[in-house]
């Protein structure tokens, strides 16, 4: 397919892999931020093409994975109420809350609908004036403009039966949390290309400077990732720590200003809890006072709810890049995509699910080899 196949070309991929191998001299640990990038890496086996010195760890950039348990519980509570149409992107439906998921609430009689755009949820609100329509506004900066637009339009149209359950998180504070951790061993970042199409990359420059890490804004196709890794390794070997843009075909330094203005009108920066990580200050969006009436938490009286989370799984360490999914004792045994213990096993973008779906073969080979070695 035009404009896609070019970025999946096997010959060019091998050339990039060779260039990385020629450039690298010392071991480096890089983190790709976005779940979409993790998905590509594991789906295409990008890490198999890299020299041994380059280790990739998978960052916290899957919006499904970092949505905290208590917010899923709130979604379940709201969806279960009569006369509510609960709209969500597809992969949120299987994320386990304290008891069950949106699919099980739907099976028990709730009106839960998958939508492709928050504007579809606004349409449902217009068509169903006697129902309360709630949209589960999940995501990073990438989905914020569309979600903001839905609220903006609902206000323009005077819709009293539309609200959003906000679970918006931001990339730079999460990167700072990882970099500021005493355990951190991430030496370079592949920043999330689509987040930067909206926000630009000016806000990453202070981070690169403060923590002396190279940050390369990177796309999502196999060649994008190999190119981004090449740029990042080149910086590390040269002792540079700058923000560079690999994804120039989509990202401008200043980002998309009209989208940013809309987001700034509807949302304000607030502290947010991240599943598996905990609360990070100034790390997400909430509605501004002018749009507070569209806050589903207030409208349905669920804002006080908190949920204790079970410490068994290591999703937090996985999302910070301190552990690989298969290093978890529950991985592939008590925790599978059918019975996820942690959110990264649910979403197709989640690091654990991506590993489980695409990587078991190599682990089994490793186990086999180890067994043979040990007689």
């Amino acid at each position: 397919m035009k404009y896609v196949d070019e970025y999946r070309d096997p010959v060019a991929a091998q050339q990039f892999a060779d260039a990385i191998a020629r450039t690298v001299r010392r071991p480096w640990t890089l983190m790709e931020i976005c779940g979409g990038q993790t998905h590509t890496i594991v789906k295409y086996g990008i890490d198999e093409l890299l020299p041994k010195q380059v280790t990739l760890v998978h960052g916290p950039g899957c919006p499904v994975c970092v949505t905290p348990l208590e917010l899923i519980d709130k979604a379940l509570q709201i969806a279960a109420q009569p006369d509510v149409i609960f709209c969500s992107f597809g992969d949120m439906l299987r994320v386990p809350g304290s008891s069950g998921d949106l699919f099980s609430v739907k099976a028990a009689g709730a009106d839960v609908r998958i939508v492709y755009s928050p504007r579809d949820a606004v349409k449902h609100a217009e068509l169903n004036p006697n129902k309360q329509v709630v949209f589960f506004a999940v995501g990073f900066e990438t989905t914020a403009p569309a979600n903001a637009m839905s609220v903006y339009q609902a206000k323009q149209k005077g819709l009293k039966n539309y609200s959003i359950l906000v679970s918006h998180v931001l990339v730079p504070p999460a990167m700072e949390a990882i970099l500021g951790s005493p355990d951190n061993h991430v030496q370079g970042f592949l920043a999330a290309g689509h987040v930067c199409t909206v926000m630009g990359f000016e806000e990453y420059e202070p981070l690169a400077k403060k923590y002396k890490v190279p940050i390369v804004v990177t796309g999502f196709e196999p060649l994008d990732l190999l190119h981004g890794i090449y740029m990042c390794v080149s910086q590390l070997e040269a002792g540079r720590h700058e923000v560079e843009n690999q994804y120039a075909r989509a990202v401008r330094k200043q980002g998309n200003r009209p989208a940013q203005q809309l987001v700034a009108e509807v949302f304000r920066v607030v502290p947010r809890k991240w599943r598996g990580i905990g609360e990070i200050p100034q790390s997400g969006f909430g509605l501004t006072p002018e749009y507070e009436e569209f806050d589903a938490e207030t409208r349905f009286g669920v804002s006080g709810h908190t949920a204790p989370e079970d410490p068994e799984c290591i999703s937090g360490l996985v999302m910070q890049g301190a552990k690989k999914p298969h290093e978890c004792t529950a991985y592939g045994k008590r925790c599978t995509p059918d019975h996820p213990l942690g959110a990264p096993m649910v979403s197709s973008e989640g690091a654990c699910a991506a590993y489980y779906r695409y990587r078991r073969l190599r682990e089994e080979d490793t186990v086999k080899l180890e067994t043979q070695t040990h007689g």
Partner: protein
Amino acid sequence: MAEKVFDLQCPVPLNDVEHVQLAHGGGGRRMHELLEGLLLPSFASAALLERHDGATLRIGDARLAFTTDSNVVKPLFFPGGDIGTLAINGTVNDLAMCGARPLYLSSALILEEGFPMESLRAVVESMRVTAATCQVQLVTGDTKVVDRGKGDGVFINTAGIGVIEHAQHIAPSEVRPGDVILLSGDVGRHGIAIMATREGLSFETAIESDCAPLWEPVSALLQAGVAIHCLRDLTRGGLSSGLIEIAESASVHIAIDEVAVPVREDVVGACEILGLDPLYLANEGRFIAIVPEHESAKALEILGRHDVSSGAAQIGRLSEKPASMVTMKSRLGTERILDMLSGEQLPRIC
């Protein structure tokens, strides 16, 4: 575990589900749980345990194939077909996958009060035309009407009987390491056609369902004396689920080559937009034939002569180990596992 840096937390494990979910009918892992946990143990007959698309039965000197299918598609009318064409082709194809010539069908209509008579006429006309094309007779039937709101316009159940007129045993248990996998054409079109209509998505060109009867190419293979070890039509769950079912039930390793699997460019494009994988999308006119390697060229030549299988290609082969697993060589030359999905594919957030 490493020292906690943040407040590391994790959700509580999910208990077994209390209600039937859509995933139980999605052709994936959940549906297999239902089969293995409830249905197979309850009705464990030898024919059922073969886990084929239909049952093959010996009655006197005759070998018959018997199958049934319920159709609950939404929307009822879609580019390339409707629920009527699906109901006939689905059952005819299940018989064909048993290597049986389809003969007789039954049909049960469950209609919703208020369903427009004009739509019903259109569905019945599709059934009539498709049955005539497939040279099968509809010989018995049933009609029920449910209250408005208790159905989805029309549900159709069909059952079918076919006759096996050759000596081959075509079943998952017959596949052998060294066999090759032939795919009858491009995959993913039915799934995209349905989803595009359901979601009101339009593309530059309409993507039509591949819905079609499959007995003709299967019959041609049999008449030419091609040894066929297994046939499988690739409906719910798509190519991946069909391959995984066979790998698991025959305890073999199946390796396929991503580049060899035909997918139309418009389907690839739609999948890119929707965040879906064409290998898991439903088809209604595609099948795989697992044959000994030395039969591959002859079989492909025969399949190539029929419109419905003119795009046939060899996509992979079977080996002994790792057993019960399907792997795919990616276009970059790396290898990964194809895993069965829990239920239907879910569109990704971004």
